[in-house]
Structure formats: structure tokens, C-alpha cells
């Protein structure tokens, strides 16, 4: 079969891109361990408090080591539960220093919700019966809005919070 010189060039370009992108996916999945945020770990959605991470006293921000934090949260229509502060008022802002590693752990009590810290890579689907986790390094200073990005009902737009990196 005769192929034009140019055809050979773009076919090589196309096939090489395909191979490179497949290798990138393989590298991310098998070497870096990238996986869906809610994977394997399940929970009883009607009794999330039974799980250690979602006991009312364990909700919200906790420093686990120097520069390492974890945030446990429960999403429900139409609120994110980040625990309560000293005055027993619901927490709406999570404050962490710049450069810290934060493990966000969240589950849903009712329907599918979203958890996105807009402007960062933190973006998860929150499914009832599953635990979603995402660990992120907060590289940039600023205020980032937490939004629900899965339509969850009439009060969907009222589900929000804030992450402040100082």
C-alpha cells in the first residue's frame, strides 16, 4: 500500500499520542495510585455516627501531625456538617496554614452530593453509603468556597462553606 509522506507523518503523530496518553493513564493508576475518591470503603448511611470519623466530636478540622490535617464532614440536604466551635456554633470556615496537607473525608446521609473546594483540586462526588477521601496540599493562600456541585434538591444552592488558607 502506498502512503503519502505526509500521511506517514500524521499517522505516526496520532499513534504516538495514543500510546503516550495510555502510558500516562497507566502511570497514574498503577504507579501513583490514582483512583475514584469514593472507592471500596462503605458505610451505613442511616447510622454514619457509628463510624469513628463521623462521630459528632470528631467532625471538623483536626491537626494530626506537624503540617498535616484532617477534616471530617457529613453532607446532608442541604448542609455540610463541619462540627461545632467552642461556643457550640456550627463551623462554616476551615482555616489551615499554607503548604499544609489536608485529608478531606466526607460521606452523605441522604442523597448524592458534591464537594468541591473551588480553585483547588479538591473535588469529589459524595455518595450515600460510601466514604469519599481526597488528600491535597494547600499550595496557594486565599479563601476558597466549598460548593455542592451535584444537584441534590431544592436547597442545593444553600450548601456551601469556606476554606481559608493563611
Amino acid at each position: 500500500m502506498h502512503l503519502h509522506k505526509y500521511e506517514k507523518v500524521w499517522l505516526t503523530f496520532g499513534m504516538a499520542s495514543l500510546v503516550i496518553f495510555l502510558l500516562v493513564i497507566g502511570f497514574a493508576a498503577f504507579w501513583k495510585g490514582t483512583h475514584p475518591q469514593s472507592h471500596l470503603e462503605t458505610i451505613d448511611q442511616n447510622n454514619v455516627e457509628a463510624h469513628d470519623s463521623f462521630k459528632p466530636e470528631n467532625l471538623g478540622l483536626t491537626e494530626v501531625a506537624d503540617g498535616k490535617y484532617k477534616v471530617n464532614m457529613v453532607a446532608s440536604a442541604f448542609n455540610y456538617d463541619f462540627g461545632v466551635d467552642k461556643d457550640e456554633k456550627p463551623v462554616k470556615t476551615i482555616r489551615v496554614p499554607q503548604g499544609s496537607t489536608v485529608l478531606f473525608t466526607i460521606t452523605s446521609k441522604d442523597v448524592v452530593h458534591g464537594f468541591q473546594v473551588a480553585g483547588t483540586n479538591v473535588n469529589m462526588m459524595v455518595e450515600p453509603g460510601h466514604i469519599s477521601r481526597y488528600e491535597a496540599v494547600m499550595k496557594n493562600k486565599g479563601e476558597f468556597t466549598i460548593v455542592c456541585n451535584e444537584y441534590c434538591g431544592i436547597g442545593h444552592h444553600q450548601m456551601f462553606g469556606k476554606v481559608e488558607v493563611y
Partner: protein
Amino acid sequence: MTKKHASNDGPTTEASSDLKGTFIMVMILGLLMVGSWFGAYWLFISR
């Protein structure tokens, strides 16, 4: 027979047709795709 052979030259002339414009468009499309991939990757790294 020889005459028939000569008429078979047709495809050969077609193969050497000018593909320069097609080549440029294919490469522009390819670079757009690769460029947008690296753009998204840069966003992921910088955030």
C-alpha cells in the same frame, strides 16, 4: 496490455497529489489537542 498499464498510472498521480494544506490542518488540530492536555495538566499542578 501496454495501454492498460499506462492507464494504471492514474492512482500513482493521485497519490502524489498536494496534501500540504491537509497536513497543516492535521498538525494544527493535533497541537491544539496536545496543548489543551498540557493546559489542564498545568492547572492541576499549579492548584
